[in-house]
C-alpha cells in the first residue's frame, strides 16, 4: 500500500529531476523527444496490463493508437464552414462543440473542438475494442496473435486506402489541444516544458490507476485467470468479461496516447498504425518484463527516447532487434530482473580462468 505511493512519488520526482537536469545542462531540447516517448509509454503500460496481467497478446495495438489519433485529427481539421448555414451545424457551433480558428494560410475554418473530438475518439475506441474483443478473446495462443495482427492490418490498410484519412500522406495541420488557459498540447517550443509535464502527468496518473487496479479485487482476479483459468471460474471470476474489460482499458490507453501525440506532433501518418509499430510495443513489454509495469515503463521511456533522437542512425531497427534478443536470452523476465552481479561475477570468473 505505502510502497505503491512511494513508487509513484519516486516516478514524479524522477520526472521533475529529469526536467531540472535538462534545464541545468542546457539540454531542454531533449524534452521534445521525452514528451513523445511519454505518450508511447502510455500505450505500452496499457499493453503491459493486457499481456502481463490478463495474459493476452495483442499484435494490433497500434490500431487503437491510430483510431484515437486519426479520429481526433480528422474531426479537428475537416472544415465545416461550408455547411455553416445548416441547422445541425449551427446548433453544434453554438453549443461550443464546433470551434472556429485560423488555418496556416490565414483562412478561417470551422472544425470540431478538440475536447469534443477527444470524447468522440474515446467512444469509438471503446466500441471498436468491444466489437473486436468479444470474438478475438475467445481465441488462444498463436491464433489470438494472428487475429489481433489481422485487426491491426485492417486498420492500417483502411487508413492507407481512405483519402479522408490522407491516405499515405496522413493528416497534418492538426491544431493545438487546449487544456487550460495558456496551456495547450502543441509542439511549439514555448510550451515545451509544460507539454513534457503534461505527457508524463498522464503517464503517472495512468500508472497509478493501473497499480491500484492490479492490487485490487480485479487485479487479483486477472492474475488468477493467468494462474489457472478454470479454478478462477470456479471462484466466480468471469474470465471472458475480465479479459474483455482489460482489452478495452488498454485500448483506451492507446487511444488517449494517440489523441495527444497527434496534437503534439500536429499530425499523424499511417506509419503509426503499421504492424511494425504494434510489434515494437509488444517487444518493449517483453523486454521490460511481462508482468512488470515499472520495468516496461523504464524500457519504453529509454528505448523510445533513443530511437526518436535518432541515436542509432540507420541502425535503429538493428539495435532494437539486438536489444530484444539480448534481453530475451539473458534476462527473459525483463531487464529489471537481470541479475547483474551474478552475470558480472561469472564474467570475471571466466576471465580469471582464461588468464590462469
Amino acid at each position, binding site marked *: 500500500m505505502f510502497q505503491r505511493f512511494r513508487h509513484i512519488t519516486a516516478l514524479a520526482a524522477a520526472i521533475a529531476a529529469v526536467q531540472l537536469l535538462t534545464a541545468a545542462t542546457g539540454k531542454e531540447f531533449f524534452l521534445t523527444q521525452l514528451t513523445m516517448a511519454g505518450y508511447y509509454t502510455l500505450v505500452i503500460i496499457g499493453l503491459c496490463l493486457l499481456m502481463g496481467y490478463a*495474459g493476452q*497478446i495483442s499484435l494490433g495495438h497500434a490500431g487503437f493508437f491510430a483510431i484515437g489519433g486519426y479520429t481526433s485529427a480528422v474531426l479537428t481539421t475537416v472544415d465545416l464552414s461550408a455547411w455553416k448555414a445548416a441547422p445541425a451545424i449551427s446548433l453544434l457551433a453554438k453549443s461550443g462543440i464546433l470551434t472556429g480558428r485560423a488555418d496556416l494560410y490565414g483562412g478561417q475554418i470551422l472544425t470540431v473542438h478538440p475536447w469534443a473530438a477527444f470524447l468522440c475518439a474515446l467512444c469509438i475506441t471503446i466500441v471498436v475494442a468491444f466489437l473486436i474483443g468479444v*470474438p*478475438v478473446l*475467445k*481465441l*488462444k*495462443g*498463436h*491464433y489470438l*496473435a*494472428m*487475429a489481433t*495482427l*489481422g*485487426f491491426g*492490418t*485492417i486498420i492500417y*490498410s*483502411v487508413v*492507407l*486506402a481512405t483519402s479522408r484519412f490522407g491516405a499515405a500522406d496522413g493528416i497534418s495541420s492538426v491544431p493545438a489541444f487546449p487544456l487550460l488557459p495558456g496551456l495547450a498540447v502543441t509542439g511549439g517550443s514555448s510550451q515545451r516544458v509544460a507539454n513534457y509535464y503534461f505527457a508524463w502527468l498522464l503517464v503517472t496518473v495512468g500508472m497509478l490507476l493501473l497499480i491500484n487496479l492490479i492490487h485490487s479485487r480485479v487485479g487479483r482476479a486477472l492474475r488468477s485467470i493467468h494462474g489457472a483459468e478454470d479454478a478462477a471460474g470456479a471462484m466466480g471470476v468471469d474470465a471472458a468479461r475480465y479479459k474483455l474489460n482489460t482489452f478495452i482499458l488498454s485500448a483506451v490507453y492507446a487511444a488517449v496516447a494517440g489523441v495527444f501525440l497527434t496534437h503534439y506532433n500536429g499530425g499523424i501518418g499511417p506509419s503509426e498504425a503499421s*504492424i*511494425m509499430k504494434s*510489434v515494437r510495443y*509488444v*517487444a518493449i513489454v*517483453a*523486454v521490460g518484463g*511481462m508482468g512488470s509495469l515499472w520495468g516496461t515503463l523504464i524500457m519504453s521511456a529509454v528505448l523510445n527516447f533513443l530511437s526518436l533522437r535518432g541515436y542509432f542512425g*540507420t*541502425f535503429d*531497427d*538493428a539495435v*532494437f*532487434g*539486438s*536489444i*530484444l*534478443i539480448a534481453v*530475451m*536470452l539473458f534476462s*527473459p523476465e525483463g531487464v529489471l530482473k537481470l541479475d547483474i552481479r551474478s552475470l558480472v561475477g561469472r564474467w570475471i570468473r571466466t576471465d580469471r580462468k582464461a588468464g590462469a
Partner: protein
Amino acid sequence: MFLELFFQYLVAGLTYGTIYAVVGIGFNIIYNTTGIINFAQGEFVMLGGMTAVSLHAFLPLPLAIAGAVLVTMAVGGLIEMLFIRWLVKPSVLRMIIITIGVSILIREGALHLWGEGIRSLPYFTGNEVSAIEIGGVRVSPQVLWALGVAAIVVLLLNVFFHYTMLGREMRACASNRDAAALCGIPTRNMVTLSFVVSAGIGALAGCVVSPITQTQYGIGAGLAIKGFTVAILGGLGNSMAAVGAGFILGILESFSIWVMPTAYKDAISITILLAMLFARPSGLFGNSEAARLKEF
C-alpha cells in the same frame, strides 16, 4: 467474356496463393517440432532469393539456387544454435520475441550487405512477357514452376514426416518433447534440423517466386505476415492445410479486386479470414482438440 475473366482472376488468385502457401509451409515445419512460430521465416525467403541472385552472377541458375538453399540452411541452423539451442525450457513468447529480433537483424544485415535495390532471378522458362494460354486465360510459366515446386515440397514433407525415421522422430518431438527425449531422440538436434529444413524450404520458395515477386531486403516481413496468416488459417502444423489456406487467401484477394477497389484488398480478405477464424477457432482444417494442447 465473363468466364474468361473469372478464370483469369482465378489464375491471379492461384499465383498469390502459391506465394503465400510456400511461405506458410515453412512456418509449419518449425512449429511442428518446437511449437513456436518463427517470425524470421520471411527472411529465409528473402535470403534465398538474394543469395541466389548474387550467386547467379557467376554460376548457372540451378547451381545458384542450390547454393542459395544451402547457404540459407546453414544460416537457419546457425540461428538455432546461437539463439535457441541453449535456452532451458523457454516460454513460447520468449521464443517468438527472439525470432522477431532475429528477423529484424537479418533484414538490417541484408540492407547493409545488398543495399535497398531490387533484384530478381531470370524466369526459369520463357521471359518476363511469355505466358501459356489456355482458352483465353493466360498464365506465366513461372507460376506453374512455383505451383510445381510447392506440390513437390508438400509431397516430400509428407513422406518425410510420415515414412522416415527422422521425420517420425521430429514429430515425436513436437507432440511431447520430454517423452521424445526419454525415448532417446536427440530433441535438440531435431529442433536444429527443423530450422535447417524450414530455412531450406523458405530459400527454395524465395528462388522460385523471385522472378514473380522480385527480391528486396524488406520483402520478408510482408511475406511472413501472409505466411503466418495462412499457416494459422489452415490450422497450425498441417502443411497441406497451409497450401489450401494459401489458395483461399489468394483467391479471396483476387476476387475482392474484381468487385471492390484494390486499395481495400487486405482489409476485405483479412476481415473474411477473421470471420472464418471466429467460426472455427482452430483453423479451417485444424482439429480443435489438438489446437487446445498448444497454447502459450
